């Protein structure tokens, strides 16, 4: 009986010990992925921002500029691109909508971002675009990969429509979470005008006035290293309208402001990320280490039972001197 129990314990010990690395190195890379049907909104605000008035072509200061960023997973398109490329793909349709203090539109830029659900590498299919113009992304956007490394990444810039390094600048504590801080600076660069501008003005009208749009930004992200999700983002962003072919003429400031996540969105993002990171930690840390320890305990128990069993058998043999049982001749008894 004891023998059978030690064998069962041994089977469970091997089960736990084998499951530990299998979960971490086989299951986790296959199970951890960005859900295809995700829907998220983030509201960012810039207090006392400078904004161009397209009616007078003069800058004005507004008490608050609001940027609403919506991100919506397009599951049908993801399925289509997945079948086409043979990869597990996520398609995000996003909209960055900037509004003045009266709620009137300042700019709106739609985007389509197609990427690998596991690695977050861009996938060049499914009509990836920025403001209706096809782009070919290189690097990440919006989210970092799972298990973020302490290194620089390439990050796609929506305005210039190119990728540039975003630098790892150290570990910080943000709302009780240990996060990685990243920073990217885009130097003054000529960028396309959004297709939709206020007052029904078209980019062609602005071009005919002899103006072109230039932009610079310092982008900051606080990233949860387990899920790769940003828990906070800020941007010190400036735009100006420069006179085409007349660099000596004074440019018109088009936008200037420090854009920050609205505090209630910071709180809700931190709460969401804190819960999601437990799922990732379950597969990468809690279960692998727990199962390994349990496997060790079960193996020790199995060996202890086996040793006791052998000792008992040896004691029985020692009691009768280890002699074979006497065979009673038939018929004597």
């Amino acid at each position, binding site marked *: 009986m004891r023998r059978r129990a030690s064998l069962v314990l041994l089977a469970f010990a*091997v*089960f736990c010990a*084998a*499951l530990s690395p299998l979960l971490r190195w086989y299951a986790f890379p296959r*199970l951890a992925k960005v859900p295809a049907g*995700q829907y998220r909104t983030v509201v960012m605000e810039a207090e006392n921002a400078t904004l161009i008035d397209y009616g007078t072509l003069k800058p004005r200061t507004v008490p608050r500029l609001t940027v*609403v960023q919506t991100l919506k997973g397009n599951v049908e398109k993801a399925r289509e691109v997945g079948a086409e490329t043979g990869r597990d793909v996520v398609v995000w349709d996003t909209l960055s*909508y900037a*509004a003045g203090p009266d709620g009137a539109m300042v700019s709106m830029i739609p985007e389509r971002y197609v990427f690998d659900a596991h690695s977050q590498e861009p996938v060049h299919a499914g009509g990836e675009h920025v403001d209706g113009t096809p782009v070919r992304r290189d690097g990440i956007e919006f989210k970092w990969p799972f298990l973020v490394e302490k290194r620089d990444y390439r990050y796609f810039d929506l305005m210039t429509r190119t990728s540039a390094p975003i630098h790892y600048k150290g570990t910080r504590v943000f709302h009780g979470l240990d996060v990685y801080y990243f920073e990217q600076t885009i130097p003054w660069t000529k960028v396309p005008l959004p297709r939709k501008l206020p007052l029904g003005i078209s980019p062609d009208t602005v071009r005919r006035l002899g103006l072109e749009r230039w932009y610079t930004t310092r982008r900051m992200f606080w990233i949860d290293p387990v899920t790769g999700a940003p828990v906070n983002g800020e941007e010190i962003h400036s735009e100006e309208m420069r006179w085409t072919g007349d660099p000596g003429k004074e440019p018109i400031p088009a936008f200037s402001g420090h854009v920050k996540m609205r505090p*209630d969105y910071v709180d809700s993002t931190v709460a969401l990320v804190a819960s999601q990171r437990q799922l990732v930690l379950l597969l990468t840390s809690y279960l692998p280490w727990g199962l390994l320890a349990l496997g060790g305990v079960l193996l020790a128990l199995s060996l202890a039972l086996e040793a006791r069993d052998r000792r008992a058998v040896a004691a029985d043999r020692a009691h009768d001197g280890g002699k074979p049982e006497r065979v009673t001749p038939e018929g004597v008894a």
Partner: protein
Amino acid sequence: MRALAAAAIGLAAALALVLAVTAVGPPRGETSPEPLLTSAPARP
């Protein structure tokens, strides 16, 4: 010999479990009916 058989059973069970779980995978979900927003919601 019995110990080897027990270890093999444990190993096979672990492999079968992991392969089954990864083959099923997490659900894909549906596209949200919510629109892309053009005004800031009052709360998250």
